């Protein structure tokens, strides 16, 4: 079997709010699959439904060949879950936390000793082994949480915004650890709101308002972007923006340093020429170029363009 998780029409309501709205999902094995989306886009709710913590309002979930939530208990033996918030015990030491989790997963004492030693070494916790978790730094806590989530060698790891409280260096190290796990055959589903992290995933689903706005490999997503990306470089970007505001084909404008990334409707024939002509008067020496889309452009296109399109349809 090559699919670790598959979901069809997955929906979850909280009262009147639809947190997850009929998503279909296929997560291949031994890959890192990313959920990219802003806060409130339904990432955590989806992950919680996948591990049986929340019952879907509608739809079906199959995890590692088991139906969830019906067979959630079986899945839980093969699953490692890292919650958004640090959820180990602050008043226990690193070793005590790991030992407790080993026992909960029913590892025998020889395995327990070996795994704990491994994880403490692999996740660089040797000097903190007898320190209480409450006194660890953000990066250390997160390494401890990952160590705890992998003690039982799970086939699937669900990581809910694992790096939100971690500095960039620690984030890079953390991703190295994830790739090491994938190399050993683990499937990882990770949610994030960082573009650089999303870019590292094998596959990616962009979530927006409880729906999947775009899905695929990051590179492919950039190639298939539903817009043309124009980069404009100019000293006074404010006046450029003023000009762009009157162009109907322009879908969104985002500033990156002294450049603007402009997303233009795909069907516009030669948008860079059109924009150059428009800017020739007010912003004479502006450099206008068609560029390849970044993941950020994909994200903006997938989330904001759809909203605009929806609004147009409604009107």
């Amino acid at each position: 079997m090559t699919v670790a998780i598959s979901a069809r029409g997955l929906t979850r309501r909280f009262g009147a709010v639809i947190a997850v709205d009929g998503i279909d999902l296929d997560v291949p094995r031994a890959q890192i699959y990313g959920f990219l989306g802003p806060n409130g886009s339904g990432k955590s709710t989806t992950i919680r439904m996948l591990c049986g913590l929340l019952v879907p309002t509608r739809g079906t979930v199959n995890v590692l060949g088991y139906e969830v939530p019906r067979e959630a208990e079986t899945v839980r033996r093969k699953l490692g879950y890292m919650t958004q918030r640090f959820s180990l015990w602050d008043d226990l030491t690193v070793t005590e936390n790991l030992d407790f989790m080993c026992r909960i997963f029913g590892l025998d004492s020889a395995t327990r000793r070996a795994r704990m030693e491994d994880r403490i070494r692999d996740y660089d916790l040797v000097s903190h082994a007898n320190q209480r978790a409450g006194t660890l730094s953000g990066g250390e806590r997160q390494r401890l949480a990952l160590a705890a989530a992998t003690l039982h060698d799970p086939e699937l790891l669900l990581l809910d915004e694992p790096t939100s409280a971690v500095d960039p260096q620690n984030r890079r190290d953390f991703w190295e650890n994830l790739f090491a796990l994938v190399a050993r055959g683990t499937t990882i589903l990770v949610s994030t709101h960082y573009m650089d992290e999303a870019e590292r995933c094998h596959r990616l689903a962009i979530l927006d308002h409880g729906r999947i706005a775009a899905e695929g490999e990051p590179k492919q997503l950039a190639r298939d972007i539903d817009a043309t990306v124009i980069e404009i470089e100019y000293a006074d970007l404010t006046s450029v923006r003023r000009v762009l505001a009157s162009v109907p084909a322009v879908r969104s404008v985002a500033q990156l340093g002294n450049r603007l990334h402009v997303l233009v409707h795909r069907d516009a024939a030669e948008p860079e020429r059109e924009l150059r002509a428009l800017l020739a008067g007010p912003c004479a020496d502006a450099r206008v170029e068609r560029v390849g889309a970044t993941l950020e452009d994909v994200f903006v296109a997938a989330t904001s363009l759809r909203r605009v399109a929806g609004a147009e349809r409604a009107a």
Partner: protein
Amino acid sequence: MIWLERLLAIAAKEGRQLARDRVTFGMIIGVPVMQMLLFGYAINFDVRDVDAAVLDQSRTSLSRQLVGDLQATQVLHIVREAGSERELSELMQRGVARVGVVITADLERRLFEGDRPAVQLLVDGSQPSLENLAQGLSSMPVLQRAATRASGARSFEIRTEYNPSRRTAVQIVPALIGTILTMTMVIFTSGAIVRERERGNLELLITTPVTRGQLLAGKLLPYVIIGLVQTTLILGVGRILFGVPMVGSFLDLYLGALVFIAAALALGLFISTLAQTQFQAFQMAFVTMLPSILLSGFMFPFEGMPAFAQGLAQVLPLTHFNEIIRGITLRGATITDMYVPLLKLVIFLAVMLSLAAARFRKRLD
């Protein structure tokens, strides 16, 4: 065996956390000792040295002897000699005297004939438990002696079994075991699940293979041990400081205590599954506390309560435990003699555990 190992892992973790929480740990030992001292010394139904005034209308050697005897009992402390009924009633109204003793002018004749009371006791009913005192005084040997000397016989003889010296501590201390256990057990466990929910630990725990039963039982186990330690502590202090006897068997006592501890813990656990925050849990625990203390027969006898309150008392585990504990420690009953209250405790335990288990799901919704 993995089943048991998981349960023990949870219990060990809880115990370790408990041992590190100095405040809580201090309360486990401190609360029972403090309450023992407080209740044991302060609550005293044996009233002594009550200020009294005497109106002696007889003024004979017998009446003087009677006043002397009253004084000698130390129950009354005669502060004034009133000259008239009016003065006596004034003294009582001003609160100078709580009890007025009126000795009639024809004291000797009344004692001799025995058909009318010779001595009248006026009692300040605005003060609690003074009325009991007067009841007690009227059967006291001092008046009896005067009566006996004159007419020969007493109509009633009262003998207090199992607590011959009628010391309050003897009744209070065994009942304190249950009261203190209720306080610590219900309050501590009511926070047990909520705390982990608040701190986010629960979300992790419920995605592991640990079962509801392991989780709930594992959390209770350390508190069962704490409860037994507290029981021992209270019994020991009661013995050493207050000379409370232990007539029955220790094994029976601990068996009874074990069932009660489990019942109190189950109540706390149920509260823990209802509350969303630790503060709510604490409030709910507190709500169960006051009726337990007031209605369980710890302070006031059931017989005086209206049917509604008696019914409510039947639902409280403390009521049945007090019955058991007094039976075993003071009357020398065995645990099998106490099967009715014991069975009620077991039913309470079963109901609470089922409710807690039904409320607690390994889910977030």
